[in-house]
Structures are given as C-alpha cells and as structure tokens.
C-alpha cells in the first residue's frame, strides 16, 4: 500500500479504494434491488394475515417487494376497467363474479399453468378452462350463527332461517350479496338455482324476521358484535376471523350443501411480470402457507394434499363436505343481476323494518 519510504503512491491508493468499494458493494450486487409487484387486494385483517402466510415468504423467496393497492373487489375491478389502456396493477384480486366480468371484457392475461408451483395438487374446479389464472382463495358460504342464538339450537338448513326461533335475528347480505343469496335460496327451496321467482317470494316471507342487511365483511362483523343479528348466510372464512376476535360465531355447512366461493389473483392485461404472477399464485398453494391461511384467515386450502387438524377443518369445511358442495351458476348470475338488483331495490329493500 505504501512504498518503501512509507508514502502513499497513486497505484496503492487506487488499489485500496477499489478493493474497499467492491467489498462494500458486494452484498447489494449479489442481491439486486427487489422487483416491485403491484397487486390490487382487500385490505384490513385479511391482508395482514395473507401477508404473513403468503406474501412475506414469497418476497423472501423471489426477492420481490409486494406493493398492495387496497379496495373491495368491485372497486379494484373498476380501477382495472378505467386503466385498461395504461394498467398500473400487475395483479388484481377477484372473486368468481368479478373474474367472469373481467375475463369477458378482456382485462386479464392468460397464464402458463406449467410455471405455477403445486398447481397439479389443487382441486380441479379451481382451474380455468380458458387458461386464465386458477383460483387461489377458497371459502364456503353457508350458515353463520352465534352459538347462543336460536334458543341454543343451531340451524342446520338454509330453510331454518324461516323458523320462528330465529325471528328478528336473521341478517341478510344487501346490495353486495343479493346476487348470491337469490340463487342459493332458490336452490335450497326448489333444487334449482334459476328459480329466482321462488327466491324472491321466500325472501319476501323472511323479511319480517330480518333484523338488518349487512354490507362488506367489516359491517357484518360489527353487526354480529353489536348483537344486531345472530344468524346469517355468510362466509366460513369471515366467521373464523370474527371467532379469532372472541365472538362466539360458528360456521355450518347447510344440509343442502355449502356453496363454494372462489377467488384469486388475476394477471392484469399488459403486465410485464407474468413470471412473478405465476409464482405468486403458486405460493398460495404452498402447504405451509395454506395452513397459516386457514388458521389466520379462515380460507380452505386449495391444495388437496394439505391436511388441517380436525377442529379447524370442522370450523371451515371438511374434504367430504367440499365434495358435496355447490358452485354458483355465475353465467346465470352475471346475465341477470342487473334485473335482480332493480327487483331487489323495488321489492325487498323497502320491506326491512327501520
């Protein structure tokens, strides 16, 4: 570093400086800046739990930074609609209803199933026949009730909501859920989801027992907590989250069969990060993450090889119950929901006592 006389030469100075800089920079060169993946998702406790179970392990594994954009399903899809020529999101969370709309409108990119880890282990109904991203969120819709409701006798069928012991305790989903309530009630009463006239007639009969309409999950949660109602057709995952907060809610698959509610992250048309999109979807099927998702968020594992402990499985949906569950007819729903909404607004909404 110095010459024989002990003074600093230009060469030794340059050598020392270069070595020092290279040493300091080596870790960051070896580990490049993480890539941002911008995803439109639901916020709140759902995201917090999902971050722990899925996104954080994904970030660490692939050196990615997840950038969340929060909103409900409809708001997120409206954003993708509005940005269809200049997308800012790489992925967007959809449930089957908004997924159908987005797919029809050409808002999503197809993915390569061969690049999605664990995709062969998921339930076949989660695949999309047209090559769009498979669903990676699975929950059940059925009966959610407070353990102490209905004189301690739990409802077993959707039709039990009409029993006098649940008078003034029933909550129904309002404008966010009418489109799934109608075919489900039609199915419960007639075995045919398309018999919507019967569904309207039965809901009209039920209205004197209805204490409130609930909106988004947070609204339903606060209404259960406030005691506005004690039984509702609702989601297993939401019930599990509220139960984790200490409210004695239970989910039960009705004897007609629960309805499976599927959702997933779709690649937004125009994203340049399709490879990361595929890997992130696969992360949802990772066995360890799937168990965490079930515990924290109440989602049923999409990966069939994942086994939950008996208690948790009973609180969500057992493998046998999944097999006899129903899927909503989304073609029927999406082609009729505008007319149903007008009818709901005119016939059902005014019947709620206020």
């Amino acid at each position, binding site marked *: 570093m110095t010459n024989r006389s002990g003074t600093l030469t230009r060469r030794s100075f340059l050598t020392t400086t270069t070595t020092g800089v290279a040493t300091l920079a080596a870790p960051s060169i070896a580990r490049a800046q993480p890539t941002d993946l911008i995803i439109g998702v639901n916020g709140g406790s759902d995201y917090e739990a999902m971050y722990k179970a899925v996104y954080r392990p994904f970030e660490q594994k692939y050196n990615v930074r997840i950038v969340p954009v929060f909103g*409900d399903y*409809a*708001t997120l*899809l*409206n954003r993708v*609609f509005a940005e269809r020529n200049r997308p800012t999101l790489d992925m967007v969370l959809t449930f089957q209803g908004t997924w159908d*709309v987005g797919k029809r*409108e050409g808002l999503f990119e197809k993915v390569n199933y061969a690049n999605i880890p664990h995709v062969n282990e998921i339930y076949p109904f989660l695949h999309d026949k047209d090559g769009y991203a498979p669903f990676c969120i699975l929950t059940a819709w059925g009966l959610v009730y407070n353990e102490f409701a209905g004189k301690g006798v739990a409802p077993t069928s959707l039709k039990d909501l009409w029993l006098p012991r649940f008078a003034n305790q029933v909550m129904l989903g*309002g*404008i*966010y859920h009418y*489109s799934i309530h109608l075919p489900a009630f039609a199915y419960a009463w007639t075995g045919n989801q398309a018999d919507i006239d019967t569904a309207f007639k039965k809901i009209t009969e039920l209205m004197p027992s209805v204490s*409130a*309409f609930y*909106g988004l999950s947070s*609204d339903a949660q*606060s209404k259960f907590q*406030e*005691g*506005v109602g004690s039984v509702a057709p609702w989601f297993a995952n939401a019930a599990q989250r509220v139960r984790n907060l200490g409210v004695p809610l239970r989910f039960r698959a009705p004897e007609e069969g629960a309805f499976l509610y599927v959702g997933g992250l779709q690649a937004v048309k125009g994203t340049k990060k399709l490879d990361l999109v595929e890997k992130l979807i696969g992360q949802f099927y990772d066995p360890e993450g799937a168990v965490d998702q079930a515990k924290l968020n109440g989602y049923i594992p999409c990966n069939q090889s994942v086994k939950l402990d008996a208690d948790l499985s009973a609180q969500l949906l057992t493998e046998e119950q999944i097999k006899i569950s129903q899927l909503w007819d989304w073609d029927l729903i999406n082609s009729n*929901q*505008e007319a149903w*909404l*007008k009818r709901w*607004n*005119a016939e059902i*909404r005014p019947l*709620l*006592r*206020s």
Partner: protein
Amino acid sequence: MHRRNTSIRILLFALPLLYLAALFIVPLINLFRMSLADPSLSKTKAQGWTLANFGNVLLDPVVIDAMITTFRIGVFVTLLALLIGYPISLFLTRTRSRWRGVLLALTLAPIFISIVVRSYGWIVLLSKRGVINSILLQLGVTSQPLHLIFNEFGIIIGTAHVLLPFMVLSVMGSLQVIEPSLESAAVSLGARPWRVFRDIIWPLSLPGVGAGILLVFILAISTFVTPMLLGGQVVMTLPILAFQQFTSVFNWVEGSTVIVFLLVSVVIVSIIYERALRRKLSTVDLSRIK
C-alpha cells in the same frame, strides 16, 4: 417591469384554472359523456349517443323514490343543522368567555375526524345495544330498544353532525359584521331581547343563514359514506343508487346518468333558492330597525 407583472398575473390565473380543468372539468365532461352513451354497445365505455338513459331514469320508480328520499333527508339535515347551528353561532359570536376557542374547536371538530370514524361512533351510540338505548332502558324510559340507526333518522343525525360546522361558520360570518350599536340603540329605546333578535339580528344574519342552508343542503344530498354506513342499506339515496350501478353491476352508463340527474337537480334547486333568497333579502324591512 409591467410585462413581468402581467406574466405573473397570467400565471396566477392559469395555475388554478389548470388545476380545476384537470380535476373537475375533465371528469365532469367524462361523466356527462358517459351518461349519454348507448349501454347496449358497452356499459363501461362511452360508445354511441342516446338520451334514452335519462328517460329510463325518470321513469324508474326506484330512482324517483330515491330522489324523494335524498331531498327529504337534505331538508331535515339542513333544518337540524340550522336549529342547532344558529344558537351556537350566536353564542360563539357574543360570548367573551375564555372557553370560546375551545367551544369553537369542539364545534368544528367533525371536520377534522374521518367520516368513517365519525359514522362508527354514531353506530356505537345509537345501535340497539348502544349507549343511548342502554341508558333509556336502564331509566325505564322504554322497554324495547329504539330503532335509532340503520334508518333515515340515523342518517339525518349523522349527516347533520358532519355538516354542522358549515352552518355555524356561515352564520357566524354574518353575525360578526352586525354593528353592535344597532342592538344597543334598540335596547336603549326599550326593545326586549326577543324583539332585538326578531327585528335586528335575524334579518341582518339572513345572508349567512341563506348561504349556510344552501351549502348544507347541497352537501347533505350528495353525501355518500354516512348514508351508506348509517342507513343500513335500507335507505336508498341517489348517491347510493349510483354506487350500486358502478360496483354491483358495473353499469357505468346508468351510474353516470343517476349522478348527472342528481347534479342537474342540485343546480336547478340552487338557482331557484338563490333567486328566492335574493328576493327575500331585497324585501327585508330594515326600516323597522329605525
């Protein structure tokens, strides 16, 4: 130097104009364009032209019902805000208490708190198991919890609370410029407080009251979050109806039509009100003050 001043003036004028154009005028034009689009071509893109959307909206009983509900809520919120706001404004204008600043801050507090937080606060207070019902039940005033929320009553209470500061500030603006010597003169001539109020304070505060009424009414009929949270999806207002169209069925055309319908209604009501108020103010008999 003169040229430089002119440039600065143009810049000062252009910047807010640009801001207004980008964030208000362009979206408004888009909204009008969408409301005139043909929904049979696309419900999320402005394609084709038709006036039929407005015909459909005007003939839809749900829309008409929502409009009546919206305006009814607007009227009650405005009345409540005026009834509560006027005495507060009068007190805040006249008091010399050292607590005046605190009282003013408390009155304006709703502006500084998130609308969602405020609404949930009302839910906690007014729900079946809420504070008010618990007190009423404990005092034996009622044997059953009262329905104080998830109905029009809840919306009126919540919205009036949110909009109260707008009424108070408008009325205070008028009260503060009333010459104190007018009141002193009236009192010295033997006028009782009620007479002073009726013949001096009230007529001279009318411009502020008028502005407050218009402001609160317009904000009340276009508010969305409070009716959504406190109406329990039972009460249908025009903003909620538009929201349904955007988020539930992705029909941007009908959603835009409902909003334009509301906007035009507000403009018409405002013009009628403003003319009526101007006429009223021109006929205020100030000679009685003498």
